[in-house]
């Protein structure tokens, strides 16, 4: 069978087989709308906390008002004591408690340190960071005002007093995703993962549903069998590439645009990088089909591995923190290198030469998985010959 015939046959099967069509096209539409929903608000704002104000003075009320005015925190309740507030935390109505102790104002006026306490739910790094960051910022601003006033009252020049309270300002500058948006961080990577997941299931189904066999019955020479095996694998991969051309473009260019995710890289670079990624996933799908051999097994296994793949990819959890064996396992999945490379290219504006290691690595995966697929196809062609000999 020639390469072109395989291509035509496989391309037709994508649209003829309902389960394949639903995972490669229908699921692509559903996930595009459904998956990003939890993250679309981008940031966690106005985390509700309670204030326990034991001082009840002008200064303590001022502090509470300023905390409430930050974009990160909202003072949802004012409660008489910490145990009452703790129960509200357990009931998930608030997520932190700001305690302003008695004599807060008096100590401040007397020039003593006047501490306040924040009890914050630390289950989420994100939430804890927001709450402690916002309260610290307010206490620093109020504190330096107090400090400057004290220095000036001692007869120090106002500019000198300001410098003495903050002699070496620290300025953090986020280079990319400056708002620290959660969708901007997670969606570009998640879209790559979704493309991989749908293509793997689709190819796995194509390889296990009836009609995948393309072995012609007549006996043939070794060279012919090898040639045909290569043609079959190449023809199938090209068919997947043709189908994915639309889906990959939508997922890597269209959806980020629709969801307002900034893109610095050019469309051409993104698509050039997506080429070995798509081929590597397609080839891995052929291997998956050969291993699982049953369409339901393909569906059930891939339903379960989605979440672990997400964590292996190294963006939800930094790769640096994974054991070495897991890091190597992760590199066998096209998504790991593809997410690193595609995020760099699209979101950071890296050039192809900046990500040449990832680019070459993906072509390496194409070679490995396509090689295994060719060996499998070749084996299928040899077996009938052995049986008749």
């Amino acid at each position, binding site marked *: 069978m020639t390469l072109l015939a395989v291509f035509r046959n496989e391309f037709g099967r994508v649209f003829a087989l309902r389960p394949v069509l639903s995972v490669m096209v229908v699921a692509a539409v559903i996930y595009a709308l459904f998956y990003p929903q939890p993250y679309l608000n981008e940031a966690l704002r106005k985390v509700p906390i309670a204030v326990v104000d034991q001082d009840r003075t002008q200064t303590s009320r001022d502090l509470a008002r300023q905390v409430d005015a930050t974009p990160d925190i909202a003072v949802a309740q004012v409660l008489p004591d910490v145990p009452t507030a703790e*129960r509200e*935390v357990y009931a998930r109505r608030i997520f932190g408690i700001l305690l302003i102790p008695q004599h807060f104002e008096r100590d401040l006026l007397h020039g003593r*340190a006047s501490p306040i306490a924040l009890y914050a739910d630390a289950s989420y790094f994100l939430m804890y960071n927001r709450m402690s960051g916002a309260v610290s910022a307010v206490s620093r601003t109020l504190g330096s005002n107090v400090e400057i006033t004290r220095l000036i009252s001692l007869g120090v020049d106002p500019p000198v007093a300001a410098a003495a309270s903050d002699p070496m300002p620290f300025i953090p500058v986020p280079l990319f995703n400056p708002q620290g948006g959660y969708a901007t961080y997670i969606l570009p990577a998640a879209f790559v993962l979704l493309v991989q997941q749908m293509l793997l299931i689709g190819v796995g189904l194509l390889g296990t549903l009836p009609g995948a066999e393309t072995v012609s019955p007549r006996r043939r020479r070794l060279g012919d069998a090898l040639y045909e095996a290569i043609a079959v694998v190449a023809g199938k991969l090209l068919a997947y590439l043709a189908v994915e051309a639309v889906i990959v473009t939508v997922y890597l260019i269209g959806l980020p645009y629709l969801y307002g995710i900034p893109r610095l890289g050019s469309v051409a670079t993104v698509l050039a990088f997506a080429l070995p990624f798509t081929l590597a996933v397609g080839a891995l799908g052929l291997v998956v089909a050969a291993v699982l051999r049953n369409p339901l097994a393909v569906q059930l*296994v891939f339903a379960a591995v989605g979440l672990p793949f997400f964590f292996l990819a190294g963006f939800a959890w*930094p790769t640096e923190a994974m054991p070495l064996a897991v890091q190597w396992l992760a590199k066998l999945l096209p998504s790991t290198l593809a997410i*690193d490379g595609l*995020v760099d290219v699209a979101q950071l504006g890296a050039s192809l030469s900046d990500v040449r290691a990832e680019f070459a690595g993906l072509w390496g995966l194409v070679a490995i998985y396509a090689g295994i697929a060719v060996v499998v196809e070749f084996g299928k062609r040899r077996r009938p010959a052995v049986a008749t000999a």
Partner: protein
Amino acid sequence: MQRRDNQPPGFSLVFWREIVWLRRRPLLLALTAVLPLGLMLLLTAILSAGLATQLPIAVLDLDGSELSRAVIRAVDATPDDAAVLHVAELSEGRHLIVSRKIRGLLMLPRNLERDVFAGRRPEVVFFYNTQTFTVGNLVLRGANAAVPSVAAGIRISLRTEEGIPVEEAKAAITPIPVQTHALFNSTLNYVHFLLTALLPAVLQTVVVTTMAYAVGLDVETRHRFAVLRRLGGGLLPAMFGKMLPYTILFLSILGIADVVLFKYLELPLRGEPELLVLAAFLFVLSCQFIGALLAMLLRPVGVAVSIATVLTAPAFGFMGIGFPRLGMNEFAYGYGEILPGTWYLMARVDQTIRGTPIDLSWKPVLVLTGFVVVLTGLTAARILSMRRAAAEPAS
């Protein structure tokens, strides 16, 4: 085996038939037992080393003074950051950040030391990358703690030089110190939260999809459905006989995973274990009924499994494992609300990390009970309507 041939039809016949099936079908057993345990092992391995520390940063030191070196030493000494190399210019540092060789760049301006002591307030700038969220926040945390502490040292020394006692100087530079206490997760160990949360998410997908598959095999054709009914001596005993072996299996899986988490990885178990087990039981049952319902509503099995996957595979996002549910839009919040995993996760966090007092722990458990009641009713109604449909052509 002989014994069962004479066994009267009923619940226990179907129950034992299912167990024999599980033994004979390696795929089903692999999917229901080996796969979830293997995936939990993998997730534990991924998270086992804890949060990343000593993230590499570069330094652009244009001053080269005693003070600039002190700032670099302070940043390097934090657990989060390690100053691994010096760069000569800004563009080089930016390039290294883009190619992910370094995670941040600390820039110390020319004449830093001279300007600080002259009161000109020179700025120390830290460039980092928030596109890689967690790493970006971590690397910033180190610099954010270290640079102000060096500045505080200067402010104290400026005062002690004037003859102010050290203690008084310390109090004077931070008039309002904030004492931050972490509730529940006092060691700030996010591995605990993630491992506690990921197990329900993985199991929810596995239970719903495999139940859609296992039940689907028995109801896919009218004939098989009739066989199941006859074996059970009635539809409801047949249904429960079919599902109970899986309930036991999934609860055992959950039990094994939890023993590993709580005994070996020493995750905190601060609440009531009985309540945790009850919630687990209700959670598994709810997921099983969702899978069974899908199998009875959709045919062939492949379609039921597909829909089960679409509903549950993205669920971990909606359950609020990565991004808290508090920050979600109404649709996402509402969808999270109708997933059993969301409520089981709450009950689980309540009884493990948080140690919620018992009188405040009932809400998620009651919601899960509600799920079981409603889903049992729907399943029973669907079975009865299927029997009516099956009876019609015969009459």
